[in-house]
């Protein structure tokens, strides 16, 4: 669990797990990043089972963008800037 933003990581895991079939394969790596925020910034590198990336990204990246929006909102709870990258 990310020390910087437990709320954002919990959100990210919840959303991605609800979209993919293979929830066991969901991997989220938190990487510290620079930011002006008090709580700093973190980047989540999200990996899912092979073949499920399309589902997480969605048509024109809409699903991915929605996940980012919500994870960012959750990050604001911990005063942390959050980026989400989907790693293939």
């Amino acid at each position: 669990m990310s020390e910087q933003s437990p709320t954002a990581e919990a959100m990210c895991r919840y959303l991605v797990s609800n979209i993919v079939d293979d929830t066991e394969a969901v991997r989220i790596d938190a990487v510290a990043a620079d930011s002006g925020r008090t709580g700093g910034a973190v980047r989540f590198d999200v990996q899912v089972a092979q073949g499920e990336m399309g589902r997480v990204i969605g048509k024109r990246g809409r699903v991915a963008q929605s996940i980012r929006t919500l994870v960012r909102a959750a990050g604001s709870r911990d005063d942390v800037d959050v980026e989400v990258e989907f790693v293939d």
Partner: protein
Amino acid sequence: MEWLEIRAATLENAKEQALEHLGVDESDAEFEVLSEPKTGLFGRVKQQAHVRARVLPTPVRPKDVRSRGQGNRRSRSARQSPAAKPDNGPQSGSARRRDSAGAARPKKKDAKNMTDTTQDSSSGGLSLAEQADLAESFVQGIASTLGITLQFKRHDLDNDIMRIEADGDGVGIMVGRRGSTAQAIDELVRTVLKRSGGSISEGKIRMDIGGVRAKRAAALADFTKKMAAEALDADAEIALEPMDRVDRKTVHDTIAGIDDVESRSEGEDPYRRVVIAPSPTPPPG
């Protein structure tokens, strides 16, 4: 299901407009081309494309794939008139956990709430009430992560569409700037429903966080009326800002209720916009 006739400059535009009016995905609609568009000199539209469209009637699912032998109970409850349906008032706040069997088996209370269950269950997906259960439980999961408890209120709209309003203390964080977070939640609800119920389920549930969608639709309808009046006054077309298809549908629906103006969508997403125009006066004879 009623047929809807649309005329537009191109077949593609006509189809797009039809889908917006029907509020369904292309895969859930049926089209008939009544006439192809013809262009005259200098690409001027001589004859508009004329198509008719309707929501695809869903085939009856063979008996053996009906889920867990509930077919009879469902079709009985399906006969209940939608008007007699009670509003499923505020529900218990905590996230309702359900295993997969629970998700497929609605509680008795929910079974009463089903509108056209025969159609829904025959689609190979979930009934409307089951979709609503799933959507509420998914959204409550999001809220719980943020430490928020939500209350849900279900509203039935036309065409078997249900709007679920979610509200609770501190819901603002789930609405976001200009409703961006609320929109993201709605998008994810659609994704989750699609995944569990197949594409037919898509677009039946509208999750309205903090009631922003209803407020926005009302404000947009007012704005549209003003723009329609302006278009009529100036006898000129007015192009609105690009907006998503839900908002475009609100505009088209509003325009449909106003005499002497018509609307069409132009451009490609995310820049697709509605143009409001005074209706052309029919040629003499």
